[in-house]
């Protein structure tokens, strides 16, 4: 009966749309963009210009040419540093993912109060200075530190937790955890948990439902978090400098030595260019892979 009573739009009644009030095209429509000009100017001055200067310097200092790059790739030690930097970043990413995935999952199923507490715990590193945290790790991890002291009670150790790859990874993972947990949580909290109930009604054990439904749907969070952690860890300086071994330096420490110690600005610039280009290449490949995955999903029509 609702259909019978529903009003039929009377014909012949042409409704004239009122002209859009206020600004109509021209400069007026673009004036909000003026608001970002101050920020753009600051970025140009303190970010774009120095980066451009460094990149240009890589090709021009001390004299124009690719001398700096020949130097970098000519020495196996340099290439080893680059490889070590990427492998450290990869390990940091994998460890972060392994720790953050269950943590973020717990956040999605926890009560609102517990969730707030979990979020607070993961955010705490953000509120402490990087230096303070790294020194704190030094206190905890050194051979005479808290951890080895505790192990000593049982006649174990001391374990070389500091001045080693392990120390670097411990420090990096703790600092980078929020960058993995937050994107994961954001994606996971958007997954409809009723899908898991549905999967169970269709005969899937709870763990199968989790692996076949929840995990695939959380992959965008994995990709976002991993990219963020990986790229950030490539540029770490303070943590490897304090917790790492000088014989296993990462590329940022190498740049520092070249620039600050040997005043070889061109070589530092060349290393920056190589790191930048490699990072761009890797993230570009990841992005392409993800888009291809999406296309096979959406383009199956």
């Amino acid at each position: 009966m609702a259909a019978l009573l529903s009003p039929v739009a009377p014909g012949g009644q042409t409704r004239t749309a009122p002209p859009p009030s206020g600004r109509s095209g021209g400069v007026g429509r673009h004036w909000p963009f003026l608001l970002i000009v101050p920020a753009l100017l600051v970025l140009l001055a303190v970010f774009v210009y120095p980066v451009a200067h460094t990149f240009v310097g890589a090709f021009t200092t001390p004299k124009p040419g690719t001398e700096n790059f020949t130097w970098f790739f000519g020495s196996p030690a340099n290439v080893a540093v680059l490889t070590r930097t990427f492998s450290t970043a990869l390990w940091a990413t994998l460890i972060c993912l392994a720790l953050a995935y269950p943590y973020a999952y717990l956040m999605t199923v926890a009560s609102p109060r517990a969730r707030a507490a979990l979020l607070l715990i993961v955010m705490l590193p953000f509120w402490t200075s990087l230096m303070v945290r790294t020194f704190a790790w030094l206190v905890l991890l050194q051979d005479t530190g808290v951890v080895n002291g505790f192990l000593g009670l049982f006649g174990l150790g001391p374990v070389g937790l500091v001045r080693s790859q392990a120390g670097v990874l411990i420090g990096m993972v703790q600092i980078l955890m929020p960058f993995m947990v937050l994107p994961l949580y954001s994606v996971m909290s958007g997954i409809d948990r009723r899908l898991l109930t549905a999967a169970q009604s269709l005969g899937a054990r709870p763990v199968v439902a989790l692996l076949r439904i929840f995990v695939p749907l959380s992959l965008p969070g994995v990709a976002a978090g991993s990219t963020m952690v990986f790229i950030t860890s490539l540029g770490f300086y303070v943590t490897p400098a304090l917790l790492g071994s000088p014989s296993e330096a990462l590329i940022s420490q190498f740049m520092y030595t070249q620039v600050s110690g040997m005043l070889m600005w061109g070589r530092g610039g060349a290393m920056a260019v190589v790191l930048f280009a490699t990072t761009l290449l890797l993230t570009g490949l990841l992005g392409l892979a993800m888009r291809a995955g999406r296309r096979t999903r959406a383009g199956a029509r």
Partner: protein
Amino acid sequence: MPVDRTTPAVKGARIDLRGMTKRFGGSVAVDDVTLTVEPGEFMTFLGPSGSGKTTTLNMIAGFTDITAGTLEIDDRPVGDTPAHKRDIGVVFQHYALFPHMTVAENIAFPLRQRKISKDERRRLVAAALETVQLPGHAARYPGELSGGQQQRVALARAIVFSPRVLLMDEPLGALDRKLREFLQLEIKRIHREVGSTFVFVTHDQEEALILSDRIAVFNNAKIEQVGTAHELYERPATLFVARFLGESTILRGAARPEGAGSTLTGDGFAVRAPGRVDAGRDAALVVRPERLRLIPDEPGSAGRGASGGTPGGNAVPVTVLEEIYLGAARKLEVVLPGGARGLVREQAGALSGLRAGDRATLTWHPDDGVLLPDDPTIERIFT
């Protein structure tokens, strides 16, 4: 639509609920529900939101623990069986399709869990898509389908593994009216073809009347009445059922036994009713709109036609408040002597010609009323 004469693929299971109770903290969501759903039956749980119908369904599906009572499927207690081992198909209001799988993968999901071979899977998926009339959509993703199509896929996924019980929780609730009416007929056809026992939850009484073999009316965590649509409409057991299913005129008063039935005396009327109610309780007489007839009062005549129009019938003087045109029929809202409203339905061929403001006599045969104990709390639910 041609009736499918093929023998049903599955023999439906019998479901026995005995004293099923669910408590959440201090509140009772389902209170001592006892009900048997016969094999192959289409049973609908009908009731307002919060009446316990969905919780009961969730207990059958295994999504919710049973606080007390037993649940048996084909005489086998399943109260402690986890959901994934119950072999029950479930269709949800929100479709619950897996967005990262194609339609075919979604439908094949329950088959993969049952380790069915790839060839067999392909055959069964195609057959299920055929049943829900969506062939050619196998490679699509759920996000590319309309709401109605998504619900068809969900239905295909729930029947593809030939479960002997299929549960549906307001499956058409998110769809617009036209599509809902169409899919109701589709679900009825699929029920006939598949042969499983269907339990369908809805708050839409019209939907319940269209689909069901029997309806269980839920209210306040309890079942008020179980019966066929005809039984519930013609012989409601409680005032709630009468109010929830269909429209009616309700006359309230004091009932006193007289002969085989009772006499109900209210504000400005005294009418005969079949049956009795407990002495000392207020009573309500329920009469359906199509059982009522309006006789226009002759202008100037003092008599109310109490015995003139229908010998032996009931007669109550009323004033017509409003007429509602429905095409094939019209409804007249009338004001009873005490101020309560009544509703009369006149078929297009038998119109009284009364208009709003006219005075008339409302008549009906005493056996067409249903006398029930009054429940003053009911009106609060419906108004």
